[in-house]
């Protein structure tokens, strides 16, 4: 399966090639383009000793090329010349036909000859095309400066230092490498060798090698005693060493920039930078280091000149060398007593900013100040420049106006060889007593820098301006904050109405129960009355006189007991009358009741009349009277005992 697929692919490729060939054969004949002959370099400007490329190319449409003559490289050294031309052919197919272009090019590596500076012209090269001579264009190249190629930062042998040193301390022609014919060496190249104390000198360390090296290691770092040191190696160079080509002593080297340092002499005199020691090696197929070589650079001596006495301010700080400007500003447009204001003093310029002593804020009456926050921001580049910022947090303690005098910074400018003073504008601060008052923090003269917002936060503010924590032994919990979302709260909502309703129900039940017991009592009394009156009737019919009146007496007393809700059997007649009157019984009815009871008492002990019929009649009348009295007692508006 796989082999058949491969076979099919082979046929497809063959068919495509045939089709391409057929197209080419069927195409119209090539149209003859006029030949060209161009020369160019890979840069327009080079440093002395720097190697650059020069290439000259003749392009034809298949014509014959012969008799090439290179140009005259006046003022230049040929580092490498081609053995013969590089040839390339280009074919273009289109609707207009097929075009074939042949190119022949010659590439040279050149470097300016020793002592050459300024503009150099590379004359035309010559060649014959189909018997006709052609001349290439002339190419101009400038020699000097730092060069224009990718290795612009790399030093050129013999001319790394700047010629612009104010002290005139230059080293135009540094000594050649210790081993001029050595295949590899390292060297330190300062941009100046004579500087003032505090003035920057930039030193670069470079590795020169002719064969490709796989390994590099610094064995001994150079010592820079007597200098304040600032590393100015470009950030990308720390990981990937930039390389360039350089001609030294007639030999082409690959040059790798190892690192760069800005040095500020701290004292006058000859200061020596000790040599760097390093090791290079190649790595074989198995990753083992072979052909190790230890390299050591020559020491570099820098002469530090003392700062001139003439014009030197009193108490001048020798680290203040360079060019500086000074600015002071307050960040707040408004402030009240207790509110913080940030005062920023900023020194900008070129020089040893890190070692520079920024102006300090004197004690301000009516203000509380905290330790300043100092930040240094350096710009990338060989020249140390940037800014140093000092931020003071100030707290006004009372309202009023405070004048902040201008801050001053004296410095020595090595370019003008003179002392100068940078000054800030004075500031006027107004503090009000409340938080809503206005405050201005502006330059007194109305000019100068305006207060800027967005100054960095100062932590001192945080540490001083809040109320302290709660330090109770136990943690207070806010039950109320969540209680209304809890189940007990539902209980609080439901229990009172339910309890009230239950209470009402109970009261009603109790009333009903009380009503029921009163009715039952009345029923029982009625029953008793019926029984007693029935018994009395029986006694009447049987002619039992005493028993009849005893029964009438009982029924009346029991009815009174039930109605008055207290026993009345032990009471005397006068006591019973008083009780009845006291409970609200009308006097005549009370009298009738008492009379009936007295009549019963009298009849119980007095003999009945001999006439049975008359006795029966009297008993019937007494029975009827007892019935009437029972109704009277029942309907009488008697009060409870408690109410009396």
């Amino acid at each position, binding site marked *: 399966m796989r082999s058949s697929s491969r076979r099919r692919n082979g046929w497809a490729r063959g068919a495509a090639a045939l089709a391409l060939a057929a197209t080419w054969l069927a195409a119209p004949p090539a149209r003859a383009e006029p030949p060209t002959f161009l020369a160019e370099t890979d840069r327009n400007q080079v440093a002395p000793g720097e190697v650059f490329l020069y290439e000259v190319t003749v392009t034809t449409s298949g014509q014959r090329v012969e008799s090439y003559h290179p140009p005259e490289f006046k003022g230049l050294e040929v580092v490498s010349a081609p053995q013969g031309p590089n040839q390339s052919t280009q074919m273009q197919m289109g609707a207009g036909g097929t075009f074939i272009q042949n190119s022949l090019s010659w590439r040279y590596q050149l470097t300016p000859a020793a002592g050459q500076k300024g503009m150099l012209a590379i004359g035309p090269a010559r060649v014959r095309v189909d018997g006709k001579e052609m001349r290439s264009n002339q190419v101009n190249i400038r020699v000097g400066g730092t060069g224009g190629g990718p290795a612009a930062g790399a030093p050129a042998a013999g001319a790394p230092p700047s010629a612009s040193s104010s002290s005139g301390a230059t080293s135009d022609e540094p000594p050649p490498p210790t081993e001029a014919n050595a295949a590899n060496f390292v060297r330190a190249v300062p941009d100046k060798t004579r500087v003032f104390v505090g003035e920057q000198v930039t030193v670069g360390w470079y590795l020169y090698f002719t064969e490709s090296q796989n390994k590099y290691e610094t064995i001994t770092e150079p010592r820079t005693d007597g200098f304040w040191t600032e590393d100015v190696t470009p950030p990308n160079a720390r990981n990937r060493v930039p390389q360039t080509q350089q001609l030294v002593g007639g030999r082409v080297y690959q040059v790798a920039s190892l690192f760069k340092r800005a040095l500020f002499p701290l004292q006058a005199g000859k200061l020596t930078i000790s040599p760097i020691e390093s090791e290079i090696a190649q790595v074989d197929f198995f990753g083992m280091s072979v052909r190790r070589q230890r390299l050591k650079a020559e020491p570099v001596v820098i002469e530090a000149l003392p700062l001139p006495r003439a014009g030197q301010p009193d108490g001048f700080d020798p680290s203040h060398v360079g060019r500086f400007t000074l600015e002071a500003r307050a960040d707040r447009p408004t402030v009240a007593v207790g509110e913080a204001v940030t005062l920023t003093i900023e020194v900008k310029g070129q020089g040893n900013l890190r070692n520079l002593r920024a102006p300090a804020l004197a004690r301000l009456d009516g203000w509380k100040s905290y330790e300043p926050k100092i930040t240094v921001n350096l710009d990338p580049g060989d020249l140390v420049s940037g800014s140093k910022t000092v931020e003071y947090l100030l707290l006004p303690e009372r309202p009023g106006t405070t004048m902040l005098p201008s801050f001053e910074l004296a410095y020595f400018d090595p370019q003008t060889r003179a002392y100068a003073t940078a000054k800030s504008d004075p500031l006027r601060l107004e503090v009000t007593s409340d938080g809503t008052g206005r405050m201005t923090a502006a330059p007194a003269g109305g000019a100068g820098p305006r207060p800027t917002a967005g100054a960095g*936060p100062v932590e001192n503010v945080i540490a001083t301006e*809040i109320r302290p*924590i709660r330090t109770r032994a136990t*943690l207070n919990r*806010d039950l109320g*904050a969540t209680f*209304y979302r809890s189940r007990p709260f539902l209980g*609080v909502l439901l229990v009172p*109405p339910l309890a*009230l309703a239950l209470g009402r129900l109970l009261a009603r039940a109790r009333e009903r129960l009380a009503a029921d017991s009163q009715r039952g009592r009345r029923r029982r009394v009625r029953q008793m009355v019926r029984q007693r009156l029935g018994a009395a009737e029986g006694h009447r019919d049987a002619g039992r006189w005493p028993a009849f009146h005893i029964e009438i007496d009982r029924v009346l007393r029991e009815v009174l007991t039930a109605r008055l809700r207290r026993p009345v059997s032990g009471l005397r007649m006068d006591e019973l009358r008083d009780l009845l009157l006291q409970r609200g019984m009308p006097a005549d009815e009370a009298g009738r009741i008492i009379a009936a009871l007295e009549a019963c008492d009298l009849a119980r002990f007095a003999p009945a009349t001999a006439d049975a019929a008359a006795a029966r009649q009297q008993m019937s009348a007494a029975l009827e009277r007892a019935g009437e009295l029972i109704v009277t007692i029942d309907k009488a508006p008697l009060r409870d005992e408690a109410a009396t």
Partner: protein
Amino acid sequence: MTHLRGARALAGWRAAALLLATVLPVQVARADRVDEAWRRGNDAYLRGDYAGAVAAYQELDRQGLVSADLAFNLGNAYYRQNNLGRAIWAFERAAALDPDDEDTRYNLKQARKLADRRVRDKIEGADRDPLWMRVVVALGPATETWLFVACYLAFFAALAALGMRRRRGEHARALLAATASILAVAAVLSGGLLAGRAALDRIPFGVILPDAVAVREGADTNYRTSFELHAGLRVRLLDRDQEWLRIRLPNGLEGWVREQDIGRL
């Protein structure tokens, strides 16, 4: 029979005592742990170990303890750490629990002032919260709860007293009826406040925690950034999509931010 009833009552008391003996030590031990963590946090804070203080306070917070003091101290610890977004969030929580606490209001103001000094988010065209919301927020949940409970219970107590005094003097009854009416009105009003609080609880709010947050048009980092907000700004939370929250500003602007960048109130 009497003996039997007495034995049952004794058994009931024993069971109750056993239950108390089981539950009470657990509660006491838990309270001890809470107080121990609270003291540990305070000690760390006073030593200057603000990270330790935050850890101890967070431990209590994770237990679901609701305490204005806890939120206040947590806010102070964040403040000392210069974590202004979280400090404002904690002070907001403390202020929500106890709006009348002057210390909380002061520290919240200080934290906001510092945050504003860095960057201040000015919301243009912001609507004010409705009146009911401002009243509810001003009182605080504990005040609203206890006010309502007091009025409610007092109202029913007055009703009960009125029922008991039905057969007594007319003057006393009239006085009781007037008291019950006043309490009824108070209970209804405080109940309304509490209902407002419950409604407010259902509207989630949050505070921006980091110094700066990019608010995006959708719940993904691939969406375009609509605007940027800064630490301490209070926003309303509308929706959630995995680890993203849709927020709304007081002027109606909406966008999405990561959930971790919002402190829920």
